[in-house]
């Protein structure tokens, strides 16, 4: 539908209708579109501004107040964790220059507890009967294949300061990995190569390992769950948490 009226049909013959004559701005030849254009533009601008300011809400969106990531933590908040990780002196000395690689194992935790065991057990009678311990060491929860294993499968009944391998060889607690490796051969191989367990030191030189027992309680070896450190700050809280600290 052509709502332009007579003016448009004359366009081909006379050109005056679609051009403002000079010196007559805003003259009597107002085109139908002009006023509506002004209206349209004004409505458009108002709607745009309304839309813009309506989407510019502040706030943090769909995050529950107790959800993770609303507070910023840093390493200093966890003094119980040693982030500096001092190397064993021999490893630090060996360094990267140690082409052969010094491979040291950190000291067994057993040496910190009851050692030497013979203090009590040297004179004590050996009771090889499989039982629940009641007088001493009743705090030990045995959950290491309990159907098939108990204390004397690993501990040497004749000398409690040592551990006994299946073929009778006696080893110290600092070599306990040999004992574990008898049954857990693939893990032992991975551990030797460095794939299993944590190592510290130089990727091209001296390193220190941990014993199996450092991470796995040999009596109940299942790795215990630990408390995680806090999650990162969510992006919508990044500025708020930064300013919080700045204001303190």
């Amino acid at each position, binding site marked *: 539908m052509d709502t332009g009226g007579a003016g448009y049909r004359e366009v081909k013959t006379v050109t005056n209708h679609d051009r403002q004559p000079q010196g007559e701005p805003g003259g009597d030849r107002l085109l139908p579109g002009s006023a509506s254009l002004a209206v349209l533009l004004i409505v458009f601008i108002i709607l745009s501004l309304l839309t813009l300011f309506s989407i510019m809400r502040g706030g943090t969106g769909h995050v529950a107040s107790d*959800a*993770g*990531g609303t507070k*910023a*933590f*840093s*390493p*200093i908040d*966890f003094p119980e*964790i040693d*982030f*500096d*990780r001092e190397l064993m002196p021999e490893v630090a000395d060996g*360094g*990267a*220059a140690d082409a052969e690689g010094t491979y040291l194992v950190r000291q067994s935790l057993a040496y910190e507890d009851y050692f030497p065991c013979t203090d009590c057990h040297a004179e004590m009678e050996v009771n090889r009967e499989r039982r629940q311990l009641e007088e001493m060491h009743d705090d030990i929860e045995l959950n290491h294949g309990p159907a098939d294993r108990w204390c004397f499968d690993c501990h040497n009944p004749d000398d409690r300061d040592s551990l006994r391998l299946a073929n009778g060889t006696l080893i110290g607690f600092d070599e306990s990995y040999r004992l574990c490796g008898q049954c857990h051969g*693939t893990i032992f191989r*991975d551990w030797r*190569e*460095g*794939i*299993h*367990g*944590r*190592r*510290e*030191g*130089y*990727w*091209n*030189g001296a390193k220190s390992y*941990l014993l199996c027992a450092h*991470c796995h309680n040999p009596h109940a070896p299942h*790795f215990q*769950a*630990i*408390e*995680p*450190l*806090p*999650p*990162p*700050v*969510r992006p919508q809280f*990044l*500025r708020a*948490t*930064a300013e*919080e*600290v*700045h204001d303190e």
Partner: protein
Amino acid sequence: MSDADRDRANQGDGFERSVDRRALLISTGLTAMAAVSASVAGASTGFVERLLRTRFTELSPERKAEILADLEREYSERYARTVTVADTPPMDGVEFAYGLDIARCVGCRRCVYACVHENNQSRDPQIHWIRVLRMEKERGIELAESTAYYEPELVPEPDAFYLPVACQQCRNPACVKVCPVKATWQEPDGIVVIDSDWCIGCRCCMSACPYGARHFNWTEPTIPSAELNPDTHYLGNRPRPKGIVEKCTFCIHRTRKGRYPACVEICPVGARKFGNLLDETSEMRYLMREKRVFVLKEELNTRPRFYYFYAT
């Protein structure tokens, strides 16, 4: 305008003085370019002095030493500590690779905070180079359903596994390709580095990185002086300015001296492995032989140096 000029102007094709045409073109062009350059370059202090400085990699050794000394002085003053900024070059015959055992990772995030401690990341606003994603065991690796904000009492949760993600030091890095000023590049030992004094903060690299590994300093980063790690590398963990991009550098200040990265050493379950891929006896080669490794988003052909594996 004079009559003579007008007469000339009315001749045929216009005036023929080629000098004028050239002069017009040059003057207009120069004016435009000057206006554009001025608006683009902005005004800043030390503009002239920085104008004389080129990219770090293109500097002479003497000039580099000067700059490093300047930086050490600046940081030492600012943090009231003795800060060293090294420029340790890559070792010959070394290509780093990283292994992450997802059978072992328990999602404890100690690696995240050890990295923050070691690499002088801003405490507020908080920047973390490592992001640990929690996935559901039943769904496998599905990034859209993962979350980095898990906060259970204890980890690991029985129905979840965890995937830490940081810079993969890709062999075909998209970030290096898109940087308009060559502020980021891959070093011969495989580490993708950023020159924090050259980056303009356009964040093209952040768009291009498929692993969300790059992080921006949205404002001036802050590290309490007591928490600063004073042993730094120019391309790595030295204190960064605001308005530039940063990311994991495989602890370049440690690994180029042979030491393990901080995340490797702190992981309580030993899930992180690191070494020289060119060394057949390295733990990395062992794990690639014995365990099955995979990489994230391999269809993007980034060929990462960061291998995830599953050791039973």
